[in-house]
């Protein structure tokens, strides 16, 4: 690894406070030309805050940003992009209704006569940018008509259209398939060769070691360490991240499998999935593995009554049931803890106790009239079981920390006394410490006789937690694995559709 003389951009002693929270405290970050720097840290370490400061969305309360050694400020996103800093964000921040070329050039479209936007020139430049990254996309089509991977390429082309010196990639592989990830790596190499400085943010260690030249570690809003990737190991990085040596340990389980509680036969949907059938027993944890977009969540939503399958039967405790709505599902003992807990989980604005009793209002009321004492009773029972930390039960759930909000959501579902609980990506985007708590809790649920369905894209989690795993690909079940057959290799093979070597 050649030593680069000077960083392109250097942040020193950056502090950012929000009312009541210190998000960043005197952190530093240096990015070098032609090198990839991985920014590593748990959730809440301050990674996204630093990205927002770099791109001019937030202004720091203290510290300095140096570009080529000159101190500079980014009062708006425009200033940051003028300084050659560009970001490819986690969420697609593009415009569905505009054309590909318009998306690439919004904010800095080439101008023609009278200062008007020059559409022809814009399309020409967009074409050459797209060609440059090997994307075969017509710059005049609407973004809406592209697939997710192509949208990502447009985002990259957009980043490159601002003659960028610094490219920030915020979890760029989160929504991509294996093949697309490989293409992304190639692109990163190309950018490095062009001498651009790259900030790479990822939760996946294999990626970091595969692609990064340097690392910087943040913890709880503070700078921990930085250096060359070639000089550290995976364990060192984890230790720096969490401040202690942690191995991902899954709880010991002795599954005591009971009677069959759920039996699904021939579930199908016109465009999303078909031929889904399996059986689930009490005390069992059934994993659903597959690549993102394999149809797992779609099937779960049909099972929970949010969408309707075109055919299929669902038996609960041997009885055939038709589930037309979430209300039906809950009444039949099936609950669904969705992936997007912010949007689909807690009802911010309602107090804790009302959140807990929301799906169980039938139990805490008489003839539709609410009985407060019963409500508080039910809420107390389940929140204390989960060791919730709150000032009072009539506090707005929005004032709780993320972990405690999640406890409220789980308490809400347990209060319905379900038979089957579906957990969709239960540990996505949460830090290692909280992950262990969720896993512990899952095994407790199973031990109490609940049947658990866990949708997960993380192989260690699937292997560590599941008694049995169903692998889905392109909307179909491609394998049902247990015991000896359950290995990382079989999971990946089946999910990706690779023939046995």
């Amino acid at each position, binding site marked *: 690894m050649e030593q680069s003389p000077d960083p392109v951009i250097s942040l020193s002693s950056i502090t950012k406070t929000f009312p009541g929270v210190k998000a960043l405290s005197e952190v530093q970050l240096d990015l070098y030309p032609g090198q990839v720097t991985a920014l590593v840290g748990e959730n809440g370490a301050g990674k996204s805050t630093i990205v927002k400061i770099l791109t001019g969305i937030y202004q720091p309360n203290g510290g300095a940003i140096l570009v080529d050694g000159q101190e500079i400020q980014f009062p708006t996103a425009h200033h940051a992009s003028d300084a050659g800093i560009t970001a490819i964000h986690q969420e697609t921040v593009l415009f569905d209704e505009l054309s590909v070329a318009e998306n690439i050039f919004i904010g800095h479209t080439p101008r023609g006569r009278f200062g008007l936007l020059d559409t022809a020139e814009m399309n020409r430049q967009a074409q050459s940018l797209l060609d440059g990254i090997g994307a075969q996309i017509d710059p005049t089509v609407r973004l809406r008509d592209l697939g997710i991977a192509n949208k990502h390429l447009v985002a990259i082309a957009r980043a490159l259209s601002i003659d960028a010196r610094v490219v920030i990639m915020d979890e760029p592989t989160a929504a991509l398939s294996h093949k697309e990830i490989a293409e992304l790596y190639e692109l990163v190499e190309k950018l490095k060769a062009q001498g651009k400085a790259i900030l790479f943010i990822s939760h996946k260690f294999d990626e970091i070691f595969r692609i990064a030249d340097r690392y910087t570690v943040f913890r709880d809003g503070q700078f921990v360490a930085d250096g060359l990737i070639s000089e550290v190991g995976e364990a060192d990085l984890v230790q720096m991240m969490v401040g202690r040596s942690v191995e991902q340990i899954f709880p010991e389980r002795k599954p005591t499998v009971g009677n069959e509680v759920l039996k699904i036969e021939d579930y199908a949907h016109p465009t999303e999935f078909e031929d889904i059938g399996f059986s689930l027993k009490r005390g069992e944890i059934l994993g659903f593995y597959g690549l993102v977009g394999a149809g797992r969540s779609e099937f779960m939503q049909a099972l*929970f009554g*949010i969408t309707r399958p075109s055919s299929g039967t669902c038996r609960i405790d041997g009885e055939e049931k038709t589930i037309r*709505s*979430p*209300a039906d*599902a*809950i*009444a039949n003992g099936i609950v*669904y803890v*969705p992936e997007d807990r912010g*949007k*689909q*989980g*807690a*009802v*911010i*604005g*309602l107090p804790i*106790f*009302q959140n807990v009793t*929301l*799906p169980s*209002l*039938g139990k805490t*009321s008489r003839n*539709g*009239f*609410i009985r407060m004492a019963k409500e*508080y009773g039910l809420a*107390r029972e389940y*929140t*204390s079981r989960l*060791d*919730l*930390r*709150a*000032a*009072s*039960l*009539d*506090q707005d759930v929005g004032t709780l920390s993320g972990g405690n909000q999640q406890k409220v959501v789980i308490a*809400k579902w347990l209060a319905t006394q379900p038979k089957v609980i579906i957990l969709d990506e239960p540990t996505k985007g949460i830090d290692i410490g909280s992950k262990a708590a969720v896993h512990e809790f899952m095994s407790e649920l199973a031990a109490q006789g609940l049947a658990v369905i866990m949708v997960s894209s993380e192989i260690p989690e699937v292997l560590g937690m599941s008694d049995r795993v169903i692998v889905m690909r392109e909307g179909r079940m491609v394998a049902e694995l247990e015991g000896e057959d359950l290995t990382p290799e079989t999971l990946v093979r089946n999910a990706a559709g690779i023939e046995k070597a």
Partner: protein
Amino acid sequence: MSLAERHIPDRLTNPLQRALKSWEALLLVVAVTVFIINSLSSPYFLDAWNLSDATFNFTEKAMIAFAMALLIISGEIDLSVASIIALASTAMGAAVQFGAGTTEIVLIGLLVGLICGAFNGGLVTVLGLPSIVVTIGTMSLFRGISYIVLGDQAYGGYPRSFAFFGQGYVWWVISFEIVLFFVLAAAFWVLLHKTNFGRSVYAIGNNPTAALFSGIRVQRVKFILFMLTGLMAGVAAVCLTSRLGSTRPSIAVGWELEVVTMVVLGGINILGGSGSIPGVVIAAFVMGMVTFGFGLLNVPGIVMSIFIGLLLIGVIALPRLWSMFIARRG
């Protein structure tokens, strides 16, 4: 996990403390102030019959405002309520021409309100259309039908017994309308604050997706709310038609604005999710009292509408300005 169970109290502040700090308390202060100013500025104000007359300024609008409050808490809005009044009133007037009696007239008024509400609700919940546009559309459509039927004519000749709803008194100065107002206020208070249905309304307004995932039949609840709002517009149509004794297609023009203002003044968040019925009740009194006070001072109605418009914006703007001011200082 600690063995000693951590105790979380049910409530931290007692209900009285909380009530004193609430928007409703502030409104009550305003109401009392307006009352005092009015009684000082005009010798005619503190007269039982005058006060009783003054209640007609708000009772009919408030009846709709109760249902509208629930609708707005759930995150929807109905701008067609005044037009529903026009259509319901026209239907009642037409019924009179066919010789309908008082009972039939009232039932027709309520039924038309209910159907209009169901029409709005169906478009919003079944077809998934935004309620603002749908009800801007039906606002034209419903009143438009009245214009088609009536043109520049008017319906009259309502039976004498029909006059009771808008002109009758239950006892001394206590009018039928004010009694109905209190009964409906109590009913809506129970519905919103004491039933599962009311709880669902709050949940939907704060987070419709989470509400759906919690097993609440979101679309059904919204549909019922639109029907309820239509029904209350029908009730208001019965009272107003009875009070005026005639129907013109321009009846109750602009009421949607006053109803929404009343709801917002009552502390209902226009974006949904929070608010209470007592707030709307007090807001109704405040608006009625102010209108009456202006009337005593011979201020024309259209100038009063400036006040209503300012009130609508001011009620939302002032707390925001205040918090901006606090943030800048601290």
